[in-house]
């Protein structure tokens, strides 16, 4: 091939593409990192670019065909330093959260004609967003403005923009893989084709003979040490059952070996040639079957060392508790409902896949791991324990993280890059494909939940029991945590004197389950909220009234079947306001409905603790810089939830300065001493509290320094915008910066904890002919305490609702008889698109929480939880059919109707 030439954003590249190369990798290889990989299959739109002005999926575009063409990536949208109008609009509406999909949306939006703008559901069909729920994107494209200008002293409660906004819309935000590391080697993984097998031999000769293959790493190279891929503050909370590479494989897709090559092609070619001999062992892929006597044992390990409750029975963890007397309570009831509910595996589907790079600093010899993680500090601790490294020799840092949803509270790639880097002493990278993400990372735990609930005729609950079986898959990781949490706030949300829980997290030879938005709560809430609704129908009382009568009230203790949790209380209460929102919405007239369609409405509520139990530590540091601005360092990560925006607002507010005077660094183990990280909805409540404390300490330090400098008593000193007024004379911050360095630190240990509430309500219309369901109205009321950034909090709620909606109506990871994932692409596993997601009216309760920073509560995981049961309850009202198995796809709805 000669004479190849392509113009990209006005620059010419004339090196010919590699054979078979797509335009996406060609562009990224030339440093155009704004072009993202979300799927490499033309399904997600993250790699969309213009070729001669026309949008194309660059992953499906042979690079050779770009010869002689003009290519525009997001980096080329701006001209002469002026942002393209769509870039301005995405900034003004904040039409993004993690921002990983944003470049694709911008490129698609920039090419829209009037017809496309008039039909966005169709025009945006090729672009997926997992964070926003699309309303913010719609607002951006239609020119709605939300972002306010920053001003001194009024930061909190305002719609201020995300600090990274300008980088996100110009494609210059640097995500995990958007770095150019010279000499980078590439890792490809060999994965198991068997559900359960012992490896009897691995022949790496053919792989090593591939030019460019440097090493093949197998279980013989991996530490013997066991660990958990789950990342928690207390290591002992999680089972210890995983090896980097094991000599026993326990699910199809488990990693068996890593091939390190000088190019991705060499590593891939090598991976295909690694020959593994397996002794195939019997497998069990059904959680109920796995608990029966004689079932194949998934982990034949010591229960104490591995922290597994009953390894021989495949029971990883269990919970059997009773509060009051369940049987007596049931006997008192005027009506009893008993039902079994099932929720499937689901995928986080963060658009940035898991992946990490590792390299040694040439001068210091220190190892840096750059990874897409929610927990840099915990991951460093896990890596150091695994490889016997002192923490001072390892830095873990995240770039901008392209979505997480719990999936990145897990060490799934970092161990492999460190193993390879330690072996080769060269920089290495491992980036999972979308297909690996489905079959080799983690999923939401599939649950079977039996609920038995009894009530008096007036709706007063007398007995509530849940029996839970959670399929934790081949490795335990979050299994116990998810199980215990699932039976927590879901049960504690209701006043009932007699409660019982029997719950099991069960090993199977399926793809491992893991942390997923809601952490088990959503599965049990689906069951409990459906059951209560059904009970109300049977009692002939309004389901909303039953909830109002039975839900916890302000001042109530929060009791599960295990009793009350020590540090969990109703710090503030807005559930009544949330229920009032739904009551009002419900009273409004129904809009137009297609002829013959059935109409009904339904609601569900959820409660969630504002932080995980047993300690969650946040740390932040604030430093006054020479120019009189402040640098805020926070330990926690952000993956699109907007906590960084709020951190800057909290600091600016305390310091009385505009947010533009506070710069932020984050997600880096070099920044602070220790931080538990971003999970359990802690970004605002815990990390935010740490930030606030650092800022309050800084206020004291500034006043003290100014007093000393001016000789005016500190009681007469006060902050005024960009300096300190010392009895009439203003000492600018920049002057204070010239003196002793001013640095303050803030901590939060995450206890005591409050609760947040969410109520969702749908009005649906159902086509009895096809089972198609249309959302006529969707209303969400949230008690988030004081809302620190309404625009962003609304985005969090809408994104959570959209993800919950996907779980309610569409998403399911399917597996074959051998447990192999059969829906390993977005073409089989459908994340909701713009066209699928209803617009939701979001309302916030007027509440101030005494425990959260400036009265705030968390609003991260929780909007997800009431969505699926509200949908099922509305369907019940419309059709008379109680649907018990998610997702409620059109065929299932039709089947339910035709059985009725």
């Amino acid at each position: 091939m000669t004479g190849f030439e392509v113009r990209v954003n006005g620059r010419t590249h004339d090196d010919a593409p590699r054979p078979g190369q797509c335009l996406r990798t060609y562009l990224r290889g030339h440093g155009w990192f704004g072009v993202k990989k979300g799927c490499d299959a033309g399904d997600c739109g993250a790699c969309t670019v213009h070729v001669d002005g026309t949008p194309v999926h660059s992953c499906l575009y042979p690079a050779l065909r770009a010869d002689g063409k003009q290519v525009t990536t997001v980096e080329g949208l701006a001209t002469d330093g002026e942002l393209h109008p769509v870039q301005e609009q995405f900034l003004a509406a904040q039409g993004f959260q993690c921002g990983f999909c944003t470049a694709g949306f911008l490129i698609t939006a920039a090419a829209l004609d009037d017809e496309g703008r008039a039909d966005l559901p169709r025009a945006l069909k090729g672009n997926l967003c997992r964070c926003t729920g699309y309303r913010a994107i719609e607002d951006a494209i239609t020119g709605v403005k939300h972002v306010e200008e920053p001003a001194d002293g009024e930061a909190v409660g305002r719609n201020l923009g995300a600090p990274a906004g300008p980088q996100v819309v110009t494609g210059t935000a640097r995500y995990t893989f958007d770095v150019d590391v010279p000499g980078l080697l590439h890792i490809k993984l060999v994965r198991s084709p068997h559900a359960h097998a012992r490896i009897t031999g691995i022949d790496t000769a053919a792989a090593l003979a591939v030019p460019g293959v440097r090493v093949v790493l197998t279980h013989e190279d991996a530490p013997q040490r066991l660990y958990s891929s789950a990342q928690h503050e207390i290591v002992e909370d999680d089972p210890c059952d995983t090896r980097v590479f094991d000599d026993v494989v326990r699910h199809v897709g488990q990693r068996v070996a890593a091939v390190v090559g000088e190019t991705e092609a060499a590593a891939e070619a090598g991976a295909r040639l690694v020959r593994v001999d397996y002794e195939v062992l019997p497998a069990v892929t059904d959680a109920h079957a796995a608990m029966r006597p004689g079932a194949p044992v998934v982990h034949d390990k010591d229960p104490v060392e591995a922290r597994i409750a009953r390894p021989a029975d495949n029971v990883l963890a269990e919970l059997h508790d009773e509060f009051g007397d369940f049987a007596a309570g049931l006997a008192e009831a005027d009506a009893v409902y008993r039902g079994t509910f099932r929720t499937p595996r689901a995928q986080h589907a963060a658009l940035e896949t898991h992946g990490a790079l590792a390299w040694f600093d040439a001068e210091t010899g220190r190892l840096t791991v750059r990874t897409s993680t929610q927990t840099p500090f915990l991951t460093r601790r896990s890596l150091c324990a695994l490889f016997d490294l002192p923490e001072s020799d390892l830095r873990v840092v995240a770039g901008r993280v392209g979505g997480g949803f719990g999936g990145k509270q897990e060490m799934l790639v970092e161990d492999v890059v460190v193993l390879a880097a330690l072996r080769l002493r060269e920089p290495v990278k491992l980036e999972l494909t979308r297909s690996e993400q489905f079959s080799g990372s983690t999923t939401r735990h599939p649950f079977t939940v039996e609920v038995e609930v009894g009530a008096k005729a007036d709706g007063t609950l007398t007995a509530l029991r849940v029996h839970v079986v959670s399929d934790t898959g081949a490795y335990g990781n979050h299994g116990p945590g998810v199980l215990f949490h699932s039976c927590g706030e879901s049960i504690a949300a209701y006043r009932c004197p007699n409660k019982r829980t029997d719950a099991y997290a069960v090993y199977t030879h399926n793809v491992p389950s893991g942390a997923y938005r809601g952490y088990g709560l959503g599965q049990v809430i689906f069951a409990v909220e459906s059951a209560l609704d059904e009970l109300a129908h049977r009692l002939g009382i309004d389901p909303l009234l039953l909830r109002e009568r039975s839900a916890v009230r302000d001042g109530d203790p929060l009791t599960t079947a295990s009793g009350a949790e020590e540090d969990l209380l109703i710090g503030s209460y807005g559930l009544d306001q949330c229920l009032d929102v739904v009551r009002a919405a419900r009273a409004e007239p129904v809009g137009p409905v297609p002829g013959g369609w059935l109409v009904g409405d339904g609601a569900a509520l959820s409660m969630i603790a504002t932080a995980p139990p047993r300690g969650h530590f946040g740390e932040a540091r604030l430093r006054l810089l020479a120019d009189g601005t402040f640098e805020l360092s926070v330990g926690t990560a952000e993956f699109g939830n907007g906590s960084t925006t709020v951190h800057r607002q909290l600091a600016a507010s305390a310091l009385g300065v505009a947010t533009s005077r506070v710069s932020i660094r984050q997600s880096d183990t070099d920044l602070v001493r220790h931080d538990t990280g971003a999970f359990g909805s802690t970004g605002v409540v815990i990390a935010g509290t740490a930030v606030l404390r650092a800022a309050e300490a800084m206020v004291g330090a500034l006043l003290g320094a100014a007093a000393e400098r001016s000789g005016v008593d500190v009681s007469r000193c006060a902050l005024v915008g960009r300096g300190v007024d010392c009895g009439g004379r203003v000492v600018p911050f920049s002057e204070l910066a010239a003196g002793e360095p001013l640095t303050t630190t803030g901590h939060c240990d995450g206890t005591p904890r409050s609760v947040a509430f969410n109520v969702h309500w749908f009005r649906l219309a159902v086509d009895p002919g096809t089972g198609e369901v249309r959302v006529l109205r969707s209303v969400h009321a949230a008690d988030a305490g004081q809302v620190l950034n309404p625009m962003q909090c609304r985005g969090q709620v809408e994104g959570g609702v959209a993800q919950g909606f996907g779980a309610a109506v569409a998403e399911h990871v399917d597996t074959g008889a051998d447990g192999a994932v059969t829906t390993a692409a977005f073409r089989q596993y459908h994340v909701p698109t713009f066209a699928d997601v209803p617009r939701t009216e979001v309302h916030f309760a007027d509440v101030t929480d005494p425990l959260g920073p400036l009265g705030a509560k968390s609003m991260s995981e929780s909007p997800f939880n009431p969505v699926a049961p509200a949908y099922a309850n509305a369907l019940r009202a419309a059709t008379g059919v109680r649907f018990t198995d998610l997702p409620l796809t059109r065929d299932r709805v039709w089947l339910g109707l035709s059985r009725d």
Partner: protein
Amino acid sequence: MIPAPFDYTRPTTVEDAVTALRAGGAGAKVIAGGQSLVRMLQRRLVRPTLLVDVGCLSRMREVVEEPDHLVIGATTTQHELLHDARVRAHAPLLSLVARHVGDPAVRHRGTLGGSVAHADPAGDPPAAVLALDGEIIVEGPRGERVIPSAEFFVGPFRTALEPDELLVGVRVPKMGEGWTVHYEKFRLSAQKPTLLGVAVMVRRVGDCFTDAHIALANSGSTPVRATAVEVALVGADVTEEAVTKAADLLDGTMEPFARQGVSQAYLAHLARVLTRRAVVAALSW
């Protein structure tokens, strides 16, 4: 995600393309828009030894108007089908269907010929071409050949094309007086592939159906004509009852190609409901 090695050629005439295909033998594969093929190459679901890129063959990109027909070049994109005035005027069913193909970026690259030659039983354009009684124009070492669409689709992803033949165009009759069309596409969610597609062309004179062409996508190993329904409609009154009665003749024995986890009963039911709705919608076109 890196394709197996292959040779690549970009001929500038149809003759050269045919020569290249012939030389490449069974390992040769044509790439048009690549919207299905590139994905399959990356996953190594297909491993051609030679790719013949027909993107530079200007003859294949033309829409030619004949007295009673439209000849649509194989590399006409879905986007062009949607916007071309002649296609919209004379073969509106193809424009309607193109609207449902992929997303805007895919429609800018994906071609009619590529879709027809790919012969996905759940594909929308093949069903439309079949409903139109289209003809597939093919060039090969033995010259031009015209294959009726009813004989072109022979199985899932299999056609009557010989390995050394190139699909150069699709000829469809111009829509005459009194005809109306509709394409009813049903999916489980917006981005899912077609669970059932119904392409309908009906002609009415007064209160009576005089002609009906109905083809279904994803109701067999190829797109299929709903012959029983067509026969029942011709001569029937234009009433909802008559349409329902005709649509109910779909007996549910059709086996979907891509099941997407749903039951046969549901698909059989959908075929009847959606065919009825599609005919009714065509009447109000």
